[in-house]
C-alpha cells in the first residue's frame, strides 16, 4: 500500500503523498473498497499513467486561470475540489475496468461462434430425427453427417425430462445429490463424455469426423433412447423393454455405426470404433432403464442385502393400481434372483 512518509500530513485524513507515481510503479490503487486489478498489467499502468499526466496538465491549466489558491488544505473550497478529484479518479478507474471487462467479454462470450450450428429449419430437424432410426448401407463413400447442435441439445433435455419422470414414479431417493442434478449430470455427461471419447478414438483410428459431427451423431442417437424410455417408464413389461432395446436401440446404433464405418479405412480401426460406440450406446440404454426403475427393488432385496448403494431405491406411496402389477413382477424377479443365487 502507499506508505505515507508524510511531509504533508496536515489533513486529519492523511494527505496526499509525493512519491507514489514518480517511478515506484505501485500497481494497486485502492479507493475505499474498490480493488482495481486491471492496473496489474503493464499496458494498463502505462495507460493510466498517461491519463494521469493529462489530468495534471488539465489541473495545471485550470490552476493558471484561478486566483484563489492556498498552500494548505484548510481552505474550505479545497476540500470540495479534493472530493471532485476523488470522484474523478474513481471514475477513471471504473472506466479502465469496464474497458478491460468488455474486451474480455467480447472475446470469450461471443455466442456468434455457435450461431452456424443452430441454423436449422423445423423440417430439417424432423427429418434428421426420423433418419436417425434408419441405417444407410452405403459404406464406401463417406456418409453425410450434419454438424448441427440444436437437435442434439433438445434431445438431451428431453431425455433429462423423461428420466426425471421415471425417477419420480419409481420413487428413487438420491442420498447425496438431487434428482435434477443426477438426471442432468447423467444425460449431459453421456452426451459430452462419450462424444469426446469417440472423437478421441476416431482420431486414433484415423477416421474422418469432426467433434461437432460426433456430438451431432450421438445426440441424434439419443432419440431412440428417448422413445424407448418414454414407453417403458409408463408400461412396465420387462419383455417389452428387451424387445424395444434390441430393435430401437439396435437401429439407432446401426445408423451411427454405418456412418462411422463409411468414414474409416481398415478393418481393425472400424472394429474398434464401432464396437466401442455400439457397446456404450446399448449399455447406456440398459443402464438408464435399470438404474432408475422400480423393478430393481426386487433384485436389490435378493442380491444386494446390507450393502446400500448411494442411489437407494425405497418403496414409496405408489398408486394402488400399480401395486398389484408390481407384486406380480416382483415375485417373478425374486424367483429369478433365487435361481441366480443358487447357481
Amino acid at each position, binding site marked *: *500500500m502507499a506508505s*505515507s512518509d*508524510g511531509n*504533508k500530513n496536515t489533513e486529519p*485524513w*492523511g494527505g*496526499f*503523498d*509525493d*512519491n*507514489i*507515481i*514518480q517511478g515506484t510503479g505501485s500497481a494497486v*490503487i*485502492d*479507493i*475505499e473498497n474498490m480493488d482495481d486489478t486491471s492496473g496489474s498489467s503493464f499496458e494498463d499502468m502505462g495507460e493510466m499513467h498517461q491519463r*494521469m499526466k493529462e*489530468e495534471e496538465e*488539465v*489541473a495545471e491549466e*485550470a*490552476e493558471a486561470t*484561478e486566483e*484563489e*489558491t492556498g*498552500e494548505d488544505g484548510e481552505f*474550505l*473550497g*479545497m*476540500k*470540495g*475540489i*479534493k*472530493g*471532485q*478529484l*476523488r*470522484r*474523478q479518479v474513481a*471514475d477513471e478507474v471504473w472506466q479502465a475496468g469496464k474497458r478491460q471487462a468488455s474486451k474480455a467479454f467480447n472475446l470469450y462470450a461471443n*455466442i456468434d461462434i*455457435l450461431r452456424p450450428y443452430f441454423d*436449422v*429449419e*423445423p423440417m430439417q430437424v424432423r427429418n434428421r430425427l426420423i433418419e436417425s432410426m434408419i441405417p444407410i448401407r452405403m459404406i464406401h463413400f463417406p456418409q453425410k453427417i450434419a454438424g448441427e447442435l*440444436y437437435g442434439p441439445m*433438445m434431445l438431451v433435455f*428431453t431425455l433429462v*425430462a423423461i428420466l*426425471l*419422470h421415471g425417477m*419420480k414414479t419409481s420413487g428413487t*431417493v*438420491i*442420498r447425496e445429490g*438431487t*434428482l435434477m442434478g443426477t438426471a442432468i449430470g447423467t444425460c449431459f455427461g453421456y452426451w459430452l463424455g462419450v462424444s469426446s471419447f469417440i472423437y478421441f478414438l476416431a482420431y486414433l483410428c484415423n477416421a474422418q469426423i469432426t467433434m461437432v459431427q460426433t456430438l451431432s451423431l450421438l445426440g441424434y442417437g439419443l432419440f431412440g433412447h428417448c422413445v424407448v424410455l418414454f414407453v417403458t417408464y409408463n408400461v412396465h413389461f420387462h419383455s417389452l423393454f428387451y424387445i424395444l432395446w434390441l430393435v430401437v436401440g439396435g437401429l439407432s446404433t446401426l445408423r451411427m455405426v454405418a456412418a462411422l464405418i463409411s468414414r474409416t479405412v481398415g478393418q481393425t480401426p472400424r472394429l474398434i470404433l464401432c464396437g466401442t460406440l455400439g457397446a456404450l450406446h446399448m449399455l447406456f440404454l440398459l443402464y438408464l432403464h435399470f438404474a432408475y426403475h422400480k423393478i430393481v427393488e426386487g433384485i436389490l432385496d435378493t442380491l444386494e442385502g446390507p450393502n446400500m448403494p448411494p442411489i437407494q431405491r*425405497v418403496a414409496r*406411496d405408489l398408486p394402488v393400481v400399480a401395486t398389484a402389477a408390481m407384486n406380480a413382477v416382483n415375485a417373478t424377479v425374486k424367483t429369478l434372483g433365487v435361481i441366480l443365487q443358487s447357481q
Partner: protein
Amino acid sequence: MAEVDELSKPMFAGLSDVSISGDIPVEGEINVPVGTPSHDDEYSTLDEPVKDTILRDLKAVGKKFVHVMYPKKSSTLLRDWDLWGPLLLCVTLALMLQGGSVDSKEDGGPQFAEVFVIIWFGSVIITLNSKLLGGTISFFQSLCVLGYCIMPLTVAMVVCRLVLLGGSGMVSFIVRLIVVTASFSWSTFASTAFLADSQPSNRKALVVYPVFLFYFVIGWMILTFSPSA
C-alpha cells in the same frame, strides 16, 4: 479547477488512508469540469422518497402480471423489462416447493437452490437458444418474459397446496393434474405470444419447444410435490 502543486501531482497517493466521510462540506458554487456528467441530471430519482420508488416499481410489476394473465400482443412487457417480478415468483415457487419429502432426513424433494437454479438456468438456456436461432429479442427482455410467465404455475402451486390439505387420494391427484396442465399450457401460450414474434416466421416451432419443455419440468415438479407427513 483550483489546484495546488503538491496536491495535483500525487493523485493516487494516500488514498488508501482516505475514508470519504460524509461531513466534508461543499459550499458555494464550484464549476469543475467533471469527466462524465451524471446520467439523470434532468430526471433524478435519487431524491424522491423511498415509498415513491417502491410504489412505482410495484405498479410496473403489477401491470406486467396483468399482461401475462391476458396475453395480448403488446410490446410493453418487452420494452420496459424488469426482473423483480421473476425474482418474486421464483422465490415464492421455491419456498412453496420446500418440505416436499417423505423422508425428512434425506431431502428427496427439490431444494430451494435446485428450483432457483433450474428456473434461472433454464431461462438463460432458452434465451441463448432463441438468440442463436436468429431472434431479435435481447437477453434480459427474454429473461423477463420467461420469468413473468411462470405466474400461472405459481398460482397452480398455491391451488395444489390447498387441494393437498384436503387429502392426497386419487381425486386430488386428478384435480391437481388438471390444474397444473391448464396452467402449464397457459404459461407456454403466454410466453410464445411474446417470444415468437421476435423470431423469423419459419422457426417459431424451434423456439417454442424448449419453452414447452421448461414449463413442463416446472409443472412436473409442482405436480409431484407431496408435503411431508
